C-alpha cells in the first residue's frame, strides 16, 4: 500500500491560504496593535509556518506513525530500555481533567488530590529503594544523576570536605560521566574484570579521599548482579565516599533486593523504563531520586510534604541545592508509574521482576544456540550476546543482524553497548512478552545467522528505507528544511 499519502514534508505540502485551527472573533473591545505594542517590538509578518488543511495534517502524521515500530505493534528487546507493555488505563487516567488541567503553581488547597498522589509516590519509591528520602523533580534518569551528584557536592561542601572525583565503571552508561562533569567532578573510569564485574584492584588503586561518589549500575549493563557489591560499598564508605546506584536496571531487582540494602546511598529511577511511563519516541521520562536520610536536606525544592492530613509543597528547605527544573517534575509520567505500582501491588511487583529475569534467562538459553554470550549462562533481566565470531568468520556484524531482524517485525536489540563486549547485541525481553514470542525471536536469529552475508549487509529489505548514509548526514548536516532559494 505504497505510497501512503501526505508523507511529503509539511513544508512541501504547504499551500497558501489553507487553514486548520481557527480562532473565534475577539469578544472584547480591541485597540489598534500599535497602541498596545511599540512598533520596533512587533514583527511585520508572522513566522512563515506551513499552511496545511486539517485532513492533510491528520493523514501526514497518521501515515508517518505507520513507519514506526513500537511496543504496541512489535517485540522490542532494546537492552537497558525495558521496553515493557505500556498499560492503556494509564493514558485514560492521565487525561482526566482533574489531573491534566492543573496549573503547577495553583494553591495547594486546590490540588490536594494531586499532592496526595505525589506524596504517596515519594513513600513508595523510598520503600522500593530501601532509602529514606525521595525527590520527584528530575525529568529523566540523566537529570536524576546530575541532581544526586549536586546533592553529594553540597553535602561534602557542608562537611568542609574537598572531594573532586567520581569513579565510574567503564561499562556504565554515557550519561553517568556526562552528569558527573556537569556537577563539577573529575571522572575516573574503573576497569571491569574478565567476568564483566568491577576490577577490585583497579577500584582500590583509584579510590582515595578525593573520591566523592562511586557510580555503579547494578545489575550492570552486561546484565549481571555485581556480586562484590557488599565489598565495593564497604570500601567506598570506608573512604568516606558515597555510593550512587544507576537505577536503569531496577526491573531485575524490584522486591528482590533494595539498593539501600546493598549499600547504595543514592539512586535514580527511570519511571519510563521500570514503571511503564511510555517511551514517547524518545521521551518524556521521569528520573526521581532516593537518598539516605543524611542527604535529605540537600534535595531540590519543593518536596511534597504533609501536615496532619493536609498536603503541601515544602519550599522551606534552606540547605536545598535549589532546583534542577521549573515546577514539580514530570508529573504525567510519575502518575503513570503510580497507577502501575498501585495495579501490581507487592505480589505483582515480585511477579514482574521474577518473570523479567526468567524471560531473559530463557531467551539467553535459546540465543546461546547461535551467538556467544561471553559472560556466562545466567543473567538478570538482560544479557549481551556477541556477533564477533560471525564477524570474524563471515563478515556479518551485530548491525547486520540488527537490521535483518527488522524485516521479521522485531525491533533490533541495543547494539555496540556496553563497549566492553565486541559486536554487542544487548537483549532485554522484559516480563510482558510470551514464551512464544521469545521462541520465534530466537528461531529468527537462527534463520538469519544462516543467510547470505551480502544479503545481510543490505538488510533491511522490507522497510521504506535501508541503510541510511550516516556519515553524509554528519559531514554535510541538513538539520532543517529550507525553501529553495
Amino acid at each position, binding site marked *: 500500500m505504497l505510497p501512503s499519502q501526505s508523507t511529503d514534508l509539511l513544508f512541501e505540502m504547504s499551500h497558501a491560504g489553507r487553514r486548520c485551527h481557527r480562532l473565534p472573533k475577539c469578544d472584547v473591545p480591541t485597540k489598534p496593535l500599535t497602541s*498596545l505594542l511599540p512598533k520596533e517590538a512587533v514583527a511585520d509578518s508572522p513566522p512563515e509556518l506551513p*499552511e496545511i488543511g486539517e485532513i492533510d495534517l491528520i493523514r501526514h502524521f497518521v501515515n508517518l*506513525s505507520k513507519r514506526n515500530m513500537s511496543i504496541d505493534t512489535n517485540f522490542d528487546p532494546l537492552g537497558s530500555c525495558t521496553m515493557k507493555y505500556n498499560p492503556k488505563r494509564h493514558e485514560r487516567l492521565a487525561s482526566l481533567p482533574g489531573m491534566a488541567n492543573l496549573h503547577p503553581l495553583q494553591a495547594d488547597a486546590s490540588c490536594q488530590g494531586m499532592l496526595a498522589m505525589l506524596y504517596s509516590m515519594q513513600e513508595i519509591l523510598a520503600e522500593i529503594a530501601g532509602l529514606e528520602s525521595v525527590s520527584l523533580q528530575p525529568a529523566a534518569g540523566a537529570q536524576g544523576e546530575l541532581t544526586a551528584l549536586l546533592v553529594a557536592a553540597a553535602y561534602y561542601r557542608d562537611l568542609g570536605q574537598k572531594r573532586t572525583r567520581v569513579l565510574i565503571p567503564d561499562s556504565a552508561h554515557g550519561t553517568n560521566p556526562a552528569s558527573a562533569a556537569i556537577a563539577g567532578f573529575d571522572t575516573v573510569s574503573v576497569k571491569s574484570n574478565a567476568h564483566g564485574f568491577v576490577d577490585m584492584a583497579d577500584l582500590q588503586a583509584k579510590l582515595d579521599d578525593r573520591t566523592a561518589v562511586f557510580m555503579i549500575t547494578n545489575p550492570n549493563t552486561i546484565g549481571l*548482579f555485581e556480586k562484590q557489591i557488599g565489598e565495593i560499598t564497604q570500601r567506598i564508605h570506608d573512604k568516606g565516599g558515597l555510593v550512587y546506584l544507576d537505577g536503569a536496571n531496577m526491573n531485575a531487582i524490584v522486591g528482590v533486593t533494595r539498593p539501600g540494602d546493598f549499600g547504595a546511598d543514592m539512586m535514580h529511577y527511570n519511571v519510563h523504563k521500570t514503571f511503564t511511563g511510555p517511551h514517547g519516541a524518545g521521551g*518524556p521520562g521521569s528520573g526521581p531520586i532516593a537518598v539516605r536520610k543524611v542527604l535529605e536536606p540537600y534535595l*531540590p525544592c519543593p518536596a511534597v510534604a504533609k501536615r496532619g492530613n493536609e498536603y503541601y509543597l515544602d519550599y522551606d528547605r534552606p540547605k536545598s541545592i535549589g532546583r534542577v527544573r521549573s*515546577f514539580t517534575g514530570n508529573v504525567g509520567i510519575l502518575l503513570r508509574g503510580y497507577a502501575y505500582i498501585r495495579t501490581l501491588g507487592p505480589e505483582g511487583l515480585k511477579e514482574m521482576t521474577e*518473570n523479567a*529475569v526468567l524471560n531473559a534467562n530463557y531467551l539467553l538459553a535459546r540465543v546461546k544456540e547461535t551467538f556467544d554470550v561471553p559472560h556466562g549462562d545466567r543473567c538478570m533481566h538482560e544479557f549481551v550476546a556477541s556477533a564477533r565470531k560471525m564477524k570474524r568468520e563471515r563478515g556479518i556484524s551485530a548491525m547486520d543482524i540488527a537490521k535483518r531482524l527488522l524485516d521479521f517485525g522485531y525491533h533490533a536489540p541495543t547494539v555496540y553497548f556496553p563497549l566492553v563486549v565486541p559486536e554487542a547485541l544487548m537483549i532485554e525481553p522484559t516480563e510482558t512478552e510470551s514464551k512464544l514470542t521469545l521462541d520465534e525471536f530466537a528461531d529468527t536469529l537462527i534463520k538469519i545467522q544462516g543467510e547470505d552475508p551480502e544479503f545481510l549487509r543490505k538488510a533491511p529489505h522490507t522497510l521504506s528505507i535501508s541503510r541510511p548514509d550516516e556519515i553524509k548526514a554528519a559531514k554535510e548536516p541538513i538539520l532543517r528544511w529550507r525553501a529553495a532559494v
Partner: protein
Amino acid sequence: MSYVLNTPADVQEMLRKVGAASLEELFQNIPESNRLRRLLNVPPSLTEIELQQHFGELCNKNQPADQTVCFLGGGSYDHFIPAVVDVVSSRSEFYTAYTPYQAEASQGSLQAFFEYQTLVCQLTGMDVANASLYEGASAVAEAVLMSLSIHAKRSKVLVAESVHPEYRQTLATYLANLPVQITTLPTPGGTLSPEDLKKALDDQTLCVIVQHPNFFGCLEDAENLVKITKENGALAIISFDPISLGVLKRPGQYGADIVVAEGQTLGNPMAFGGPILGIMACREEYVRKIPGRLVGQTVDRNGKRCWVLTLQTREQHIRREKATSNICTNQGLFALRAAAYLTALGPAGLKETAELCLHKAHYLAEQLTAIPGVSLKFPQPFVKEFTIQIPGDGAATLAKLLASRYHGGLATGRWYPSLKNCITIAVTEKRTKAEMDGLVEAFRGI
C-alpha cells in the same frame, strides 16, 4: 496481576529449559544479606475498576482549570489544545516507540522531529534547533553550558532579575560546582535597562540571559540588549514565549545567539508542571555545540531521502564526560505535539491566537485598573501577562478569589519580596469576556 503472560505452566517449562529448579535459583548470585525476604510495603493491588474509582476520588479533591477559571501564568498557561494534537500523540506507534536508534524502524519519528526542528527555526528565525530538552528552566542552564563550550575562557554569567525566578534558581543549581559566576542584574523598573547591562558587561562576560516578555509580562528592550551584549563579544541568550511570536519580532531577527523557551504553550497540557517541553535553537555557527538529539536528512543506499539521528559524537553515549550535555531521554512526544500544534495553527492561527491574548489581557488590565487602588505595577507594554499592584496582600487576595472559583493569578511577592502587594495575571485565548468580568467582580467584592 503484573501484565505478565507466563502462566505457572509456562514458568515450569522455561525453568526446565534454563536448567534452574526454581525462580529463586535465578537470583542466587544476589548475596543473601542483601535479599529482601518480605513483600514490599506498598499499597495492595487495585483492579482497573478500583484504580479508576481511586483516581476519581483524587480528582474530586482538585480544582482543575475547566472548573475554576485559570488566570495563572509563569511559564504554564491554559491555552486551547486542538483535538488533532491529541490524535497525533495518541498513535501507539509514536507514544510506545523509543529513541529512534534504528532509522529504518523509526522514519515516522525521525521525519516528525526533522519537521519539528524546522518549525522551531521558522518560529524563532534561528538557523538550527535540537529535537527537545526537558523544559524551560533547564533549557536556560543548558544554554549557559553550551556558551561555556563556545567561550571556554569567559566565566561571568549575567541574568536579568526579571527572568522567571525558577529558571534563575535552576541556573544557579546547575552551575553551583562549575567555574562560573552568576550576577543577577536588578530590574526595579520591571525590565533590564540597557545602561545597567552596559555597566555590568566586561571582557569576562560569557553570556547575558533575558526573558522577553519577562516574568512580570513586560516586554524587555530585547533588540537593544542583544546588540549591547554582542558588541561586548558575549553570547545573547533569549528565553521567549512561543505564542507571543505570533505578534512579536522573532529573536533571530534581532541577532540572538541562543534562544530557549518553555514549549508547554504549543499544544501541551499544564499537567501540574510536567512533562512539558524544552525548546532550544541557535545560530548556524554553534550547531556542533548544541545539546540534545539532532535529526539530519540523508539518503539511504537506494538514494531515497530519509532521516537519522546525527552529530551524535556530541552526545553522552559517545563523548561521555566531554559531551555537550548529559541528556538521553528527552521530551520527544511533546516535540511531536508542538509540531502538530504549530502546523494546525499555521501563520494566521498563531497570529490570531497571540492577538486574542493581547486584546483580552489589555481588556482585563483596563477593567482591573479601573478598581480604586489597583494599578499596573510597571509601565512597559505586555502581550498576555501583566502585573498589577493592589491595596492588600497579593496572596491573601488570591485565596479569597479561589473561594469564588478563580485561580486569579500568581502572588508576585512569593519570589519578589518587594512586590508582596502585586499579582501577575495571564490571559489566554480561552478566557471569555464573561470569565474576565466575573474575575473583576470578584476582585471588587474583596
